[in-house]
Structure formats: structure tokens, C-alpha cells
């Protein structure tokens, strides 16, 4: 792409055609994946295995990050709120920022780099070593057998990880705010419960993470399937998964926030 003349008319045209070609293929690929998802219901073991590799193995990083993000929120929030003498609102601050934004977004970013990249590398390498071709020869559809379970495992894992991240983060905020800095425990929880609405905050946050999980899984399996079958191609596809996922998550987050929290 960084040829001598990509700023020429022809270069821009080539770039545009390339981009639209990939976008079109990505959309067609998503359609194919969804159409071939029936196998996931018939053989749930396939999905369970992928949930283990994507979700369960991401647990440690998600829980530890959640704890520290919550602790930092508690510390920073306390410093600022103390200026206005309203430390008791710390619980609200920690819970709302985690439920609405930080929980879904950071979990999705971590999940994309921890699990999304692995999925891309795995599928890309399967393609490079012609395992996918071999499956086709044996009349096994690689999209149904390899791609769809990984896709659905990502969609299932993200909301669960987000819920755990957020719960852990609120506990971290509680640890720093109440145990360490001495915010009143009663007002910490009761103000939180008064301000956090189940439908508006908890459910919307989970819907967000579901959308992120869908986007990450789509990008990860597509980049793997589309990777040039070389060592360089697979490494480039893995990098692209992380970069594209991160940008998509942040962009989607803005769109979803403006749709969901308009009246607040």
C-alpha cells in the first residue's frame, strides 16, 4: 500500500476498490457465518470449547483489570468529590461510570486483544497450513465447523466478562473508597442504589457489550479467514484485528451512548 505513487489518482482508486471489496466480502462472510450457525445448536460442544479458550482464559486479566480500574476510579473520584464535600456520591460515580462506559469498553478492548487476536491467528494459520482446504476436501464446511463456533463464543463471552468486570470494579471502588479512605459505607451503597436504574444503566451496558462482542467476533474471524496464507499475512491480520476492533469499539460506543442515554 505504501508504493511510490499511492497518492496518484490510480492509487486512490485502487485503495478505494480494495476497501469496498473487503467490506463487501466481510458482509457476505458474516451472512454465511450466521447462515451456518445451526451447527452450533446441534453440537454445542464446539461452542463450549471456544468459550473456554476465549472466555474462561480471559477471566484473570478481566478480573484483575476490573479491580484496578475500580480502585483508580475510587481514588480519583474521592479526590475530586472531596473538594465539594460530597464524598458520599463516590458510589454513584464509580457505579455509573463502570456500568455505562468503562465496563463495556475496557472489557471489549481487552477481549479483542486477548481473545480476538488469538482467534485471528488460529484461523489464519489454519488457512496458511491448508487445514481449511483439507476440511473442504472432506466435505466439512470450515465456516460451520471452525468459524461459527468461534464467532458465537465471542458473542456469548463478552457480556459475561463485562458483568464480572463491572462487579469487580465496583468492589474495587468500594475497597478504596470505603475501606481505605473512609467514605461512609451506608451512603456509598444507598446513593448508588438510588441513582442506578436497572433498565437504563445495567441493561443498556450489557446491550452495549453484546454489540461490542458481535463486532469483535466478526472482525476476528473475518481477518483470520481473509489473511494472506503466509507468516507475514497472518501477523498482519492479527495486528489488524486489534486495531480495527479498538477503533470499531470506540466508534460504536459513541453511537450507542448517544442513542441510549439521550434523555439523561
Amino acid at each position, binding site marked *: 500500500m505504501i508504493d511510490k505513487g499511492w497518492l496518484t489518482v490510480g492509487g486512490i482508486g485502487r485503495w478505494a476498490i480494495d476497501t469496498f471489496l473487503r467490506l463487501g466480502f466481510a458482509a457476505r462472510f458474516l451472512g454465511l457465518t450466521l447462515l451456518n450457525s445451526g451447527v452450533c445448536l446441534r453440537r454445542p*460442544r464446539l461452542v*463450549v*470449547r471456544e*468459550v*473456554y479458550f476465549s*472466555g*474462561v482464559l480471559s*477471566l484473570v486479566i478481566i478480573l484483575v483489570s476490573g479491580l484496578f480500574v475500580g480502585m483508580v476510579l475510587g481514588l480519583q473520584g474521592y479526590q475530586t468529590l472531596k473538594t*465539594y464535600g*460530597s464524598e458520599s456520591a463516590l458510589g454513584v460515580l464509580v*457505579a455509573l461510570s463502570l*456500568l455505562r462506559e468503562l465496563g463495556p469498553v475496557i472489557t471489549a478492548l481487552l477481549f479483542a486483544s486477548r481473545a480476538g487476536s488469538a482467534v485471528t491467528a488460529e484461523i489464519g494459520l489454519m488457512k496458511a497450513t491448508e487445514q481449511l482446504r483439507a476440511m473442504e476436501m472432506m466435505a466439512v464446511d470450515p465456516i460451520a465447523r471452525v468459524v461459527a463456533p468461534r464467532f458465537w463464543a465471542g458473542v456469548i*463471552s463478552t*457480556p*459475561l*466478562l463485562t*458483568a*464480572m468486570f*463491572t*462487579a*469487580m470494579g*465496583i468492589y474495587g471502588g468500594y475497597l478504596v473508597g470505603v475501606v481505605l479512605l473512609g467514605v461512609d459505607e451506608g451512603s456509598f*451503597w444507598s446513593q*448508588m*442504589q*438510588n441513582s*442506578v*436504574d*436497572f433498565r437504563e*444503566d*445495567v441493561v443498556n451496558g*450489557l446491550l452495549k457489550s453484546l454489540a461490542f462482542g458481535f463486532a469483535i467476533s466478526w472482525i476476528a474471524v473475518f481477518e483470520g479467514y481473509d489473511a494472506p496464507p503466509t507468516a507475514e499475512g497472518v501477523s498482519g491480520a492479527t495486528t489488524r484485528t486489534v486495531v480495527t476492533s479498538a477503533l470499531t469499539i470506540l466508534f460504536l460506543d459513541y453511537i450507542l451512548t448517544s442513542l441510549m442515554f439521550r434523555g439523561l
Partner: protein
Amino acid sequence: MERSSLDVWVGIFVVGGMVALLILALKVGNAGDLLRAGPTYTLTASFENIGGLKPKAPVRSAGVVVGRVVTIDYDPETFNAVVTLSIAKRFDRFPKDTFASIYTSGLLGEQYVGLAPGGDEKVLANGDRISKTQKAVVLEDLIGQFMTSRAGEPAAK
């Protein structure tokens, strides 16, 4: 890794996610209130000014939450704000002359409706209107009154 132990881990993972969700719903959010709420009845009250009162604000009597504000509307006939309150059924013995006021918890806290029971024998039933109300204290009005009352006094030395 054996298949069965893999299944166990995924099972623990899913259960952990559900538990986290339950904690978020019950301990962090207000889903517990919705479950515990039980049957309610509605009362209306019209206020001259509601200040910053919002739907879902608590209704308290003697400081205890007895219900929530459901809707806030504007009556074009009387130019008053009409607030609908949903009160828990077990607190159905508020006298007819109960006084409804809008208070603020703390200096900058949320606003809520306070009910002060009167002494009437008859009680408020579903759909009744609370006739005795007091409008919210608006900080600007208060400062304005303070300024005009100070204007009359001799200047401090």
C-alpha cells in the same frame, strides 16, 4: 485438557457471569426495589413549582421512602405542575389533609416529595388528589428575597 473438565470450567464461567449480573441488578441497581415493591396505589398532587423534581424521585414520610414519583405533567388550566405519586399499598392510611411538600436532601442533593400526615379521620384512596401542597424552594427566589430584605436595612459598617 479433557472434555469434561473443560465443560466444568465453562459452566463455572457462565455461572460467574450470571452471579455478577445478579449482583449488579440487586446490590448496585434498583431491581431489588422493583421486585420488593408489591402492589401500589396512585395519588396526585399539584404544585405551584416543582423545582428540579424528576420522575422516579422518592416519596418520603417521616424520612422513610413510601413510594416514587411516576409522572410529572403541566396543567394548562391552573398553570400548576401535576405530580403523580405511586405509594406502596401497605401505607394506605394517609389522612385526607396530608401535606405534600418538595424538599431537597442536602444542599445540592436530589429533590423528593415529603408527606406530612394531618389529623383527618378520612384517608386518601387510590386516585385521590392531595390538596395541601407546598412548592419547591427555588434558590434564586430565596436569594432574591434575601437581597430585597437586606436592601431596606442600613448598610453594615
